[in-house]
């Protein structure tokens, strides 16, 4: 079982995601803004990071992902996106942002678990 950091400014999303992942036996750390997010990752070195794409500002998630990579963290990152692909931003895994996979909100527990397991397996 793995240690997973969830960084999202929506406490309800953290709560729901934590519950899903805890039910599969994972341990969860969480943070509500980019600064705290960086701190918990730095201090606990989790097996996987789940990162919301838009926190305070559009692109906050992108910048934090870039910061992790720049600082040498190779932890797999799963990014939560909430902007529909039809509206403007279009991205695929690894495109522009150094993340490993995406999950579009609203999150379905099955899909989340599947993606988390895949990333943990690759590791």
């Amino acid at each position: 079982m793995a240690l997973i950091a969830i960084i999202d400014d929506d406490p309800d999303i953290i709560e729901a995601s934590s519950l899903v992942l805890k039910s599969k036996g994972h341990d969860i750390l969480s943070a509500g803004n980019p600064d705290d997010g960086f701190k918990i990752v730095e201090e606990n070195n989790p097996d996987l990071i789940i990162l919301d794409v838009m926190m305070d500002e559009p692109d906050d998630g992108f910048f934090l992902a870039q910061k992790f990579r720049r600082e040498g963290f190779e932890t797999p990152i799963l990014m939560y996106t909430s902007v529909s692909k039809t509206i403007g931003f279009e991205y695929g895994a690894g495109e522009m942002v150094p993340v490993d996979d995406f999950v579009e909100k609203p999150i379905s527990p099955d899909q989340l678990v599947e993606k988390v397991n895949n990333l943990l397996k690759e590791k």
Partner: protein
Amino acid sequence: MNTENPTILIIDDEKGLREGSKRLLMNEGYIVDTAENGATGILLVKDNEYDLVIIDLKMPDIDGLDVLTEIKRLRPNSVCFIATAYASYETAVESTRLGAYSYIPKPFTPEELIFNLEKGLKHRQLLLEAERLKREREESLLEVAHEKSRLKTIIESISSGVLLVNTGGEVVYYNHATLNKLAIDDLQIGQYSLDKLPDGLTDIVTRMLSEKKTVNKSFTTQYEINNGDMYIDATCSPVPQHDGTVAGVVIVLKNITGFKKIEKIKNQFVSMVAHELKTPLAAVLGYIRIMQDESIHISESQQDEFLTRSRSRLNSLLDLVNDLLDISRMEEKKVGREIEELDIKEIIRNTIKFLEFEIAKSKLLVNINFPDQLPVIKADRNEIIRVFTNIISNAIKYNKEKGFIDIDCSENGNYLTIKVSDSGIGMQPEEKEKLFQEFFRAKNKYTREITGTGLGLSIVKKIIESYHGKVEVESVFEKGSTFIVHLPINK
């Protein structure tokens, strides 16, 4: 010319000849004028254009040849005859050189005279016809020249670029605006130009030029210059020949930078709205999916909490949708305003009463400081209530427990100034800057539990500015904020 009754002037100093000829010609259907000397004759010619003029060569005042010269100058199309008894070869030649049509030797018989005059009339007709043709040609030439210069002026005045190329891709015509819309310095008539067009445009023009028959259809493409400095909309239409084949393509280049900017703002706004709408939905759906997932165990109290959280998220979603509807109504100026005289004191007292429960919950002290006399303002009651409800409820939400709210009101020149100060969490300078933007919400350790749509202050600003007022904010982080509203007084 009146062909039925030709007009004739007889200038002769011999009364007998004048009168005799007049009678004769009137019987033949001529309209006859006579003059007894050159000067009178010239005066008559100044006022009338005669078909024919007979001039006696020898008159006491002015020489017949001088009279002839003057009449030809005045009336080049009048047919003139020289009549004289002193015929000579020299005067005949001279009078013809000066413009006389023919020479009538005196004495003449009536038949001779009429024969000569009829020939003269035919000549007069030819002269008039030639004159008419010449005038028509001149007029139409003038018209063509005028039309051309008018078209040119019109096309040059158009702010859009107009470029015409032939089947060889060579420039046939262009106006000045074309140059900056293609971002080039120069174009030459006859020069190959397709390589100067942006790629997408070249493709369209090339395809149109290669068509066998002109299709009555325009194609449009858009391109940008200097990475978005300017956006151009290019419309290409084929120019047909008489037989339907393609003679060339006319390209109209329109600057659409303004539209593009608006479109971008609109897209950003739509994307922000979508994000704001989706966020609470994602949270609620997340809870529902967990509750329905049999593999995840949750306790009854957890389930209750999830339902409470979901309800609260949906309520704020509803607030958000209502705020969005208000904003769109305001933008479209669809708001049915009822302008009336408002007592600002009364409105603020009612607002505080309305928010009493929240004020009591946070144990806040509200101080109202109003002078006795305040001018009324003219505005829609609901809009002004909305402004102060938003500002005062912010002062409550972002306050500290047992804090205070001070409300001051004063007359300030042409404005009524209302200050709402709180002892709340305040703002960082960078937060202050974005405060009135749609969907901006300060996010820090103090604001986590505070709900809001992020539209309240943008609505406040829109309403106040629609009354030509102004809203300002002063703030010290962790100490408090003051919102200052200036509303014009209608005196």
